[in-house]
């Protein structure tokens, strides 16, 4: 009896704990009723056993108590919603990337456990009690701060996306990955809490003639990038909080740099050093890497800003259509140069467009949600979104980008994504002429 209860109502539910098993006998009567209800529901072929009029087991029993999960987790039915990597992309997983499952992101905030990872030497385990941030170079008073010192400074919280400029980098030569997660998942958006660099640099003072800042991490890569001082003073922050809790180790615990709107790797994680100087350092990560090769052999460096970009998150290859009818197209748009001012939708491959609705909040340098009603006639379609930001910049097509930048830039692919919807509802990543 207990066995049939589990197979009927408990299939896929949490493995029964001790208390759950104790209740088995009590719930047994319920199972009989449920069985009868299931028989009645047989007239409705698709109705699961717990559908009305049945009162399912979870409604007729006690669940685990408040001490069961001191740190919460998603429902285990969501077990497929995880960061995923592309094993063939890199030599190993320590200098590699995992992708946010955008196909399951409802809203503009990326869950901390799903926020994409990009490591250059794996994820270090940094002891916050021993970690220090050093600010030195062209300052009046060099500073050594621990996490407690940092937390005493005036704090601010801001919602910003962070995107790796290699997001979409595998698609320059053609459509390769049939998945929203893998074509667009090197992005996440969070509420970040920390201290403005302008506050910290006010505390150290800045010597006249300073123009550049080197940010360096405490990971094995000692990841480092040069940033104009002006950008640092404008809106950069040292972050210790992420979506209401301590910054995650994957994101740089105990502290990281936030460089709003600029490519991800500059937002140095496990931040340990800020050096102020007159010239950039021309680190390997801003010369050999994170530069874009153009058809004439020249490479663009210091292409920091993320230009306006958007993608339809439903439908997408992972979330196909289920028959003709009325749907809400959903998606995300963002720009490192300010607010998204509009997003247009096309379902015919870019012949006609209509405005989508922007869902508040519409924040500068943050993911912005858009929606549009779509009555699908069940015929093949080409679904696209096109973002425009407050600077007036219009998201380009891949053909437009390629005409100028060729096929070898790797980085900064902000092109319009085309999802091919077939008559059976399946969705594929394609590129158009």
């Amino acid at each position, binding site marked *: 009896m207990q066995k049939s209860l589990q197979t009927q109502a408990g299939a896929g539910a949490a493995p029964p704990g001790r208390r759950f098993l104790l209740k088995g006998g009590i719930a047994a009567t319920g199972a009989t009723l449920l069985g009868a209800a299931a028989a009645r529901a047989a007239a409705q072929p698709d109705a699961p056993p717990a559908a009305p009029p049945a009162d399912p087991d979870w409604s007729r029993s006690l669940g685990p108590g408040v001490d069961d999960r001191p740190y919460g987790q998603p429902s285990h039915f969501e077990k497929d919603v995880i960061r995923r990597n592309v094993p063939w992309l890199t030599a190993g997983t320590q200098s590699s990337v995992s992708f946010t499952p955008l196909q399951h992101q409802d809203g503009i905030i990326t869950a901390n456990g799903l926020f994409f990872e990009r490591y250059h030497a794996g994820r270090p385990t940094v002891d916050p009690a021993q970690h220090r941030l050093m600010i030195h170079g062209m300052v009046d008073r060099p500073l050594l701060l621990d996490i407690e010192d940092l937390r005493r400074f005036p704090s601010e919280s801001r919602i910003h996306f962070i995107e790796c400029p290699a997001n979409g980098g595998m698609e320059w030569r053609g459509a390769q*990955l049939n998945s929203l997660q893998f074509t667009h998942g090197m992005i996440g958006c969070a509420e970040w809490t920390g201290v403005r660099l302008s506050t910290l640099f006010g505390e150290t003072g800045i010597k006249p003639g300073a123009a550049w800042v080197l940010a360096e991490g405490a990971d094995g890569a000692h990841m480092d990038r040069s940033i104009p001082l002006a950008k640092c003073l404008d809106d950069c922050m040292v972050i210790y909080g992420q979506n209401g809790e301590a910054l995650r180790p994957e994101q740089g615990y105990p502290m990281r740099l936030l460089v709003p709107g600029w490519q991800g790797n500059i937002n140095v994680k496990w931040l*340990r050093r800020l050096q102020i100087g007159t010239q950039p350092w021309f680190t390997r990560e801003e010369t050999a890497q994170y530069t874009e090769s153009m058809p004439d*052999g020249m490479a*663009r460096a210091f292409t920091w800003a993320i230009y306006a970009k958007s993608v339809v998150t439903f439908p997408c290859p992972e979330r196909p259509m289920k028959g003709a009818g009325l749907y809400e197209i959903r998606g995300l748009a963002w720009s490192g140069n300010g607010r998204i001012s509009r997003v247009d939708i096309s379902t015919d491959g870019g012949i006609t467009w209509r405005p989508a609705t922007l869902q508040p909040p519409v924040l500068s340098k943050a993911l912005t949600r858009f929606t549009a009603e779509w009555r699908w006639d069940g015929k093949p379609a080409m679904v696209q979104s096109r973002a425009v930001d407050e600077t007036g910049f219009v998201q380009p097509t891949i053909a437009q980008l390629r005409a100028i930048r060729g096929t070898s830039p790797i980085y900064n692919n902000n092109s319009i994504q085309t999802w091919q919807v077939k008559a059976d509802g399946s969705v594929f990543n394609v590129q*158009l002429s």
Partner: protein
Amino acid sequence: MSSFPDRTTAALVIALGVLGAVRAIAGGTQAAAPPDAQTAATQHADLAAIAPVSKGEDELVGHYGYGAVPTAQQIEGWSIAVQPDGTGLPPGHGSVSQGADIFASQCAACHGTFGEGEGRYPKLASDSKLTDEHPVKAVGNFWPYATTVWDYINRAMPFPAPHSLSPDEVYAVTAYVLNLNNLVGDDFVADRTTLPKVVMPNRFGFILRDPRPDTHDVACMSDCRKPSDIHITSSAEHVGLTPRTTGPLDEMEPK
């Protein structure tokens, strides 16, 4: 060598990986200067434009008084960044032949004896032209400064034990990597004065001022394209490179 090769590059990398122990560079001087006339003067002007010089700030120094002032020794210990003029390079030196020995024991397992790269590990030497359809970018044909080679090896290599080499050892393997790329002779000794002087063929191959926006799409709303002009140029449908997006993490290794 990029960390994010596209499929074709990845295939190329794997294909070239087995070509193995041939000196990657045929010898002689490097390819001609890149077409666009970047010079020290234009780069200097570009840098000034993208990072304006500060007049300084001193009104609020020490206002909060939190934290400590690091000692000179603490600052020195963490100041590992090296600049193109050699600022930041420590005393010490190392020769190509010393570097060959260290490289064989500490680097070759991943990068190949002659920098040709094992499997998908980066190649450290390349003579491909940057205008090639699939350029292999490495120290010799892409890196603008020899000092950056020292800096990067010192801070990040050997990959499993970063920052474990002594300055002399870093000088030596740097000399060896430069020699593999035919940038210095067999008798080269790297130190804080010789490294900044190494002539790097791609020194002026970088545009430092972001030329974007370089696309000028307009938000056309109707009759934007002729239907007959639109066709699918590529589809990921049958490419077979997508890891699964449900179930446990994929371990696919496509051929």
